[in-house]
């Protein structure tokens, strides 16, 4: 067991090109997915919190439920969309990193939107009279509240990022786990497990966990610094 860990750690430290490529792709895909999903989910979540419209309750329930969307189902949906036999087949995105970004963004979107809605809703209760008095329209309140809730939003984004990096079923279906093209940490771990290389698989898992830990520690550190100034 120790040998595999030592071996995997050595591969990382020695800058093994294949492994580093896999690590880099994992981060690129998941960070991109968080970025694009948030671009939409933050304002959408805030808008649902601030605007009242028919069917709003249903939308909230749906978003909350979609936080538990099974990754394979998301994978299958995106596969059917991006397949040459599907409506977006002509884009030629299937089995590329872009397809993995799409499917991860789909998984992240409900999490970020639902948690953002909750947070903005709470903030709105606190701010609503003051902002109205100052002349903030509901539309203008969206960026104001998102910015004032930035410390809580970091946690929301990390939750999304965690879901993206931890996920294997969806990226396997739409990425295909192609060596050097769409192979990421989780699909590598699944592959090594099915080859019976349990120790190597576990070591890769340890690397993934370490990376996740580092990113969370960084976000926490930055958040705490900023919080000390402005909270």
């Amino acid at each position, binding site marked *: 067991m120790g040998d595999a860990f030592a071996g995997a750690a050595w591969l990382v430290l020695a800058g093994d090109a294949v492994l580093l490529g896999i690590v880099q792709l994992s981060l690129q895909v998941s960070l991109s997915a968080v970025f694009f999903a948030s671009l939409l989910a933050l304002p959408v979540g805030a808008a649902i919190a601030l605007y009242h419209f028919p069917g709003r309750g249903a939308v909230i329930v749906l978003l909350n439920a979609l936080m538990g969307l099974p990754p394979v189902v998301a994978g299958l949906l995106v596969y059917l969309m991006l397949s*040459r036999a599907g409506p977006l087949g002509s884009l030629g995105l299937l089995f590329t*990193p872009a397809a993995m970004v799409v499917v991860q963004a789909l998984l992240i979107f409900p999490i970020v939107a639902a948690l953002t809605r909750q947070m903005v809703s709470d903030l709105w209760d606190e701010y609503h009279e003051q902002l109205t008095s100052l002349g903030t329209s509901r539309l203008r309140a969206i960026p104001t509240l998102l910015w004032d809730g930035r410390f809580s939003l970091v946690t929301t984004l990390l939750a999304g990022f965690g879901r993206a990096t931890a996920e294997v079923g969806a990226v396997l279906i739409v990425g*295909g786990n*192609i060596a050097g*093209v769409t192979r990421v940490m989780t699909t590598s771990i699944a592959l090594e497990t099915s*080859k*019976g290389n349990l120790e190597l698989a576990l070591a890769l898992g340890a690397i993934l966990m370490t990376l996740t830990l580092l990113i969370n520690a960084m976000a926490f550190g930055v958040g705490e610094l900023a919080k000390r100034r402005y909270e």
Partner: protein
Amino acid sequence: MRRRILGALVGLFLAASVPADDQKFITLASTTSTEHSGLFEFIVPIFQAQTGISVRVVAVGTGQALAIGCNGDADAVLVHAPAAEQQFVADGCGIDRRAVMFNDFVVVGPKDDPAGVLGADTVAEGFERIAQAKAPFASRGDDSGTHKKELLLWADVGIKPTGAWYRELGAGMGAALNTAAAMQAYTLADRATWLSFSNRQGLSIVFQGDQALHNPYSSILVNPNRHPVKVDLARVWHDWLVSEAGQTAISQYQLNGHQLFTPN
């Protein structure tokens, strides 16, 4: 300043998520057995060096590989399930099916062999003994080439495998072997995956060598009349596999001193 940083970030993510298509490649849907054996890692670089075309391998069960091909999401397939392959061509999903290579299936089971498969003369007899002893048997259950083969073998001996001893996993070959090892169950495996599998625990080969365990692999081009696939590049690969260069490359691939595939 903040705006500039944001702009740079957007650019970075866009660049990251859109891969540069600076080289010629085809997408090949193939089986986990060929991928896990390491065959592609060996022959694809040789092919690429000779032709300048890279091959992106999507390794799934034969059933899914054929579905991917039929949807036009791969340019060619390399699979091992003769009946399903014929259907694939008959349905108009693929064209120009060619035999490329073969190896064989082996029956794997616990070393102490509770069902006594070791003494069997044919694979049929071995399967009968497993059923009679109600010894645990792990079936792939995933519509893969190996699963189809296993069902054929049961049908040949006229047994409908049911009961607590027969466990349908719905898993790939590697996962099935991991499970069989944990349950000390018998299972049918292709030789290539078995040889490249490390987590054997108490498992070993209990039967091999019957003609009925022949495992042929075919290359089929995805029908270019159905989907805009890269048929020209795929044909280079298709032809290369059965050319002398390709057949030599296949025969040269060894794992731990064993040749895993025999070219046709």
